């Protein structure tokens, strides 16, 4: 399959706007589940406001949250796809910039030193573009994630040591949830990276935080940790917006990678309750939007 880069640019523009306006069905189902189980009156009222906001955003075709985030595009290229990789990256950035100018959207992206805002949502190495490959498929998939700063500002890495074992990982995650309090806009998805190098560990924590609710870590050891940690963090009572309640997190997600004999790295990245993502899938039959 040969990729039409003009179509990619249009799709990447549309993806940014779609992601900001339409919450994925798994997150909506997550809200319904938390709302049904919440026993704290303040927590229940806040969840009700969040659910109402999802409806208002759809009715008014407005953004769910004012934070347009840092734009991230996750690209998965099947082995049957023919594309100029450099031109693909340019098309993605162009789509991102056009969404910002043409909708218009608040550009939340600035130079890290001068703090200058180009009003394009783009800048040096932004949008973030991650590229991965899958076998035997005439499929190109682009996932768009506008990563809000309230949750992104609550990111941690700890290079624990092997002698501290898995207890270090569990303790670290609980302490991060306590430190984050209401700043991350709970209920959150807590993303945990376990293993790898320092940078891979942090990357995995982002993959975990932005994974669909209801999905499980492919590594059974990671999946076991997910179940334990989800129960543990929801015992803390931080609650929606950090104002108390049972609904601290929709789930804790874990992603793992092999690591060094001397290392025991753990990273935490959080996703806020406005857990936004959108996907465009290109096949020989055409392009479809989804989540």
């Amino acid at each position, binding site marked *: 399959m040969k990729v039409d880069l003009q179509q990619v640019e249009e799709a990447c523009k549309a993806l940014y706007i779609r992601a900001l306006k339409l919450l994925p069905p798994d997150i909506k189902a997550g809200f319904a589940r938390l709302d049904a189980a919440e026993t704290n009156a303040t927590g229940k009222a806040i969840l009700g406001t969040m659910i109402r906001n999802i409806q208002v955003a759809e009715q008014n075709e407005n953004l769910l949250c*004012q934070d347009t985030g840092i734009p991230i595009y996750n690209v998965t290229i099947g082995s049957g796809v023919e594309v100029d990789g450099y031109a693909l990256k340019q098309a993605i950035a162009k789509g991102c910039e056009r969404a910002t100018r043409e909708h218009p959207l608040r*550009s939340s992206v600035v130079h890290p030193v001068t703090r200058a805002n180009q009003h394009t949502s783009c800048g040096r190495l932004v949008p973030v573009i991650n590229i991965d490959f899958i076998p035997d498929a005439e499929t190109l998939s682009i996932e768009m994630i506008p990563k809000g700063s309230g949750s992104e500002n609550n990111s941690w890495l700890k290079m624990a040591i092997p002698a501290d074992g898995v207890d270090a990982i569990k*303790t670290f995650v609980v302490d991060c949830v306590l430190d984050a309090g209401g*700043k991350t806009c709970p209920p959150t998805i807590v993303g945990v990276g376990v293993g790898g190098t320092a940078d891979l560990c942090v990357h995995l924590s982002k993959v975990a935080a932005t994974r669909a609710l209801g999905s499980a870590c492919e590594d059974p050891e990671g999946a076991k940790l997910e179940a334990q940690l989800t129960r543990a963090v929801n015992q803390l009572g931080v609650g929606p917006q*950090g*104002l108390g309640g049972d609904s601290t997190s929709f789930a804790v997600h874990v992603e793992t990678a092999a690591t060094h004999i001397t290392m025991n790295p753990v990273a935490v990245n959080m996703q806020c309750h406005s857990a936004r993502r959108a996907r465009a899938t290109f096949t020989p039959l055409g392009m479809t939007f989804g989540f």
Partner: protein
Amino acid sequence: MAHYDFQMPVTEEQVRKLEVNDTVTLHGTLYGIRDATQIHMFDHGRMTRFDMNGHAVVHTAPNVKEVEKSAEHPSGYAPICIGTTTSARMERFTRPLMAQYGVRIIIGKGGLSQSSADAFRDIGGVYLAVVGGAAALETTWIEQIEDVDLDDLNPESLWKFRVQGFGPLLVSMDSRGGSLYTQVNKAARDRRASALACMGVKF
């Protein structure tokens, strides 16, 4: 747990009456302020022509659309999506906002810390929690962007909104030292040991 409707601006006496868990709805003027706005005002010595005495500020940087100036859009901006950001980053600006500009109410999400609680007690002020991430709804409470100052910082300009029924907002920090965030955080830390024990963590 009382509810108050405030026509802005308010007096010190009005805000000192508020207690944690009360709710407030605002009407009239509301100012939007953000990290860069306050860095420029308090670190770089820039001044605003706005009179914020007795007023409320919300921690925000909105999505707006440039339009021709008209009676409907006197600032030349139409609101698209206006919501509230995390307050914690702006902790050190609470006292100067109150002391130098007479601000009485800070609206945000995620709460503020002890130095803000002290300023609320010393000068007379409160923190009202809006539900973060519920910006589509919050936008419906805003009638108009009346005016804008320090607009070279856009989107982190100093915004003057006209609001109708902005709320209900939860009083989560009051002028008597009360803070829901401190209460919830302390209770959560008290549960840390049992949460770790349920996963078999050994100390």
